[in-house]
């Protein structure tokens, strides 16, 4: 596991410290397989990973709703296992469920939450005004939540998580199922919380752009393990440069294709002229591909050559703008035809691919789940 980027425990500013945390559910499913990380005071820290990677489980352990199976964790200086109530009063939690009460007004929802944190009435009144203002709900504060839009409900939920002025706010998939304008607004609120109120934010997301734009540091989590941790820019730089995606006639990239039919395209092209033996042709094609790969690898500025998710050649190069024309010239010089050449800056998706060998796709499962929840909520009315 790469823990690069995380300052050591000696820095003295870590507000969350997690060591070898394991959570195995009663059925035997191990959702978290020994993660260690630290969250610094005042940062926006993100857990990025696909659905089912163990993000929510980690949050539920950190907010004292689930007991860990093994490992230790301290939040705000208190051990989760020994002083859960001390932790609870210092943290706020906003789940992915948008768990606001429809039969109450926005203000009543916030006030009720204040009572659950044992604040007295004048404090609740004052803070309710404050947090509702913070999420721009002052105008609608006294309307029933059943009349709120999805985005308003989410904002109200965040306001509720702030009523007791927590040191850390836990946000589980804060923009799940929200439209793009609402997402951008939620990001703004989260940034303001950190910048103006100095609140540390621990969030999970499976949206790469969200992790990239919002988080100071992220941990990439897959199958219950942290595979990389650090600031998004650093993680992307860790790939080693820009990416060139190349397609060359008669020289398909070798190996894995996401459809599970390796070298299918290559076979079709290479097999036709040499009718004699398909196998021999395939071998020849892959031999040619390997040679061409070595040729690419030998070019100036190219540090890594592999096959992209969509079957194109993927080259990691230092300074894509200068290297791209050189690659084009070199390949043309071999008498080959370049069908396409694209350059892109690495994204967190590439980082995820780099560490896990898989693409982090935004699957429909999550929003389908949310739709079901929303319809359930309507059914309840």
């Amino acid at each position, binding site marked *: 596991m790469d823990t690069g980027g995380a300052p050591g425990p000696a820095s003295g500013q870590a507000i969350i410290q997690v060591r070898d945390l394991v959570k195995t559910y009663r059925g035997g499913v191990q959702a978290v397989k020994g993660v260690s990380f630290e969250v610094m005071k005042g940062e926006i820290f993100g857990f990025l990973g696909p659905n089912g990677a163990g993000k929510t489980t980690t949050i539920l352990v950190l907010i004292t709703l*689930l007991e860990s199976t093994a490992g230790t964790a301290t939040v705000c200086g208190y051990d989760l296992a020994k002083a859960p109530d001390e932790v609870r009063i210092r943290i706020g939690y906003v789940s992915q469920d948008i768990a606001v009460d429809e039969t109450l007004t926005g203000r009543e929802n916030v006030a009720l939450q204040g009572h659950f*944190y*044992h604040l007295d009435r004048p404090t609740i009144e004052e*803070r309710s005004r404050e947090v509702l203002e913070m999420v721009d709900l002052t105008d609608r504060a006294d309307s029933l939540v059943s009349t709120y839009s999805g985005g308003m409900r989410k904002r109200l939920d965040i306001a509720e998580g702030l009523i*007791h002025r927590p040191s850390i706010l836990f946000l589980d998939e804060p923009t799940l199922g929200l439209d793009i304008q609402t997402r951008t607004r939620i990001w703004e609120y989260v940034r303001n919380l950190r910048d103006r109120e100095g609140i540390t934010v621990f969030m999970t997301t499976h949206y790469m752009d969200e992790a990239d734009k919002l988080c100071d540091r992220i941990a990439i989590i897959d199958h219950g393990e942290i595979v990389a941790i650090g600031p998004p820019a650093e993680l992307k730089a860790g790939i080693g440069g820009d990416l060139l995606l190349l397609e060359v006639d008669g020289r398909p990239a070798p190996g894995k294709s996401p459809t599970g039919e390796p070298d299918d395209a290559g076979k079709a092209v290479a097999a036709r002229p040499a009718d004699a033996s398909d196998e021999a042709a395939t071998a020849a094609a892959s031999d040619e591909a390997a040679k061409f790969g070595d040729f690419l690898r030998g070019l100036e500025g190219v540090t890594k050559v592999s096959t992209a998710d969509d079957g194109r050649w993927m080259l990691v190069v230092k300074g894509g703008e200068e290297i791209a024309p050189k690659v084009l010239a070199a390949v043309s010089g071999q008498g080959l035809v370049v069908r396409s050449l694209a350059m892109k800056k690495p994204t967190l998706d590439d980082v995820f691919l780099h560490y896990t060998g898989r693409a982090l796709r935004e699957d429909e499962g999550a929003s389908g789940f949310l739709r079901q929840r929303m319809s*359930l*909520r309507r059914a*309840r009315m």
Partner: protein
Amino acid sequence: MNASLGLSGVGGKKTMSRTFFGDTWWVAWRELKHFVGEKIRILMILVQPFIWLALMGNMFEKMASIPGFPAKSYLDYMAPGVVTMVTLFGGIFGGMSIVWDRRLGFLNKLLAAPIARSAVVSGKMLAISIQSALQASIIFVIARLMGVSFHSGIGGAVMVIVLAALLSLVFAGISLSFGAMIRSHEGLMAVMNFFTMPLMFTSNAMMPLSFMPPWLQTVAKINPLSYAINPMRTLFLTGWNVRELVLGVVILALVAFLFGLLATRLFKRSMA
């Protein structure tokens, strides 16, 4: 608690009992808000007793002429039965709210707060018993308006309401125990439906014990419903019987407390 900081003074052992009662109240407050928000339900609560009393009263009117029947009219006999029946239905579905809260994620939010864990159960029980007390008062007034006789004055009326509230706590405790274990409302509904009719018909809510076969009489004697109906009926038909009343209150309170403990335990386990 220090208002300016807002955080201090919470979580210490010595404040635990204070937070338990406060937390219980706020959990109950939310449930009561739901109750008040449902206009149709309140309408039904007002209409239902009329239907029950008018329909059942007329249907079984002849029973009062059977020798050995303990009341002058079946309506008089039936009124406390209707109070307990409505209380049974009100309490037995109390577990639904915990299933909903779990499903909608509200339960997690509640438990992320520093509230006493047991307050989740006790708050819901309190809300149900307040609703049942309210319903019992309404039925009582309607029954009196329909000419049902009553022989123990204002104090007796208060005791009828207290008995109904205690009885609803018993059923709420049972329902919440199942609600803590069963994750779907369909499942819980099925289990609770399984309970209601047998509980009803193995009690003397509708029919005197003496009209039942001996084995059914034995079942009726351990049915918690009987501990509410018997003293309630005495208050309606004859007047005060302190011994019976105290026995009823003590037994109901004890059973309610035990089911409350069980529900709390099962609930805590379900969150691990």
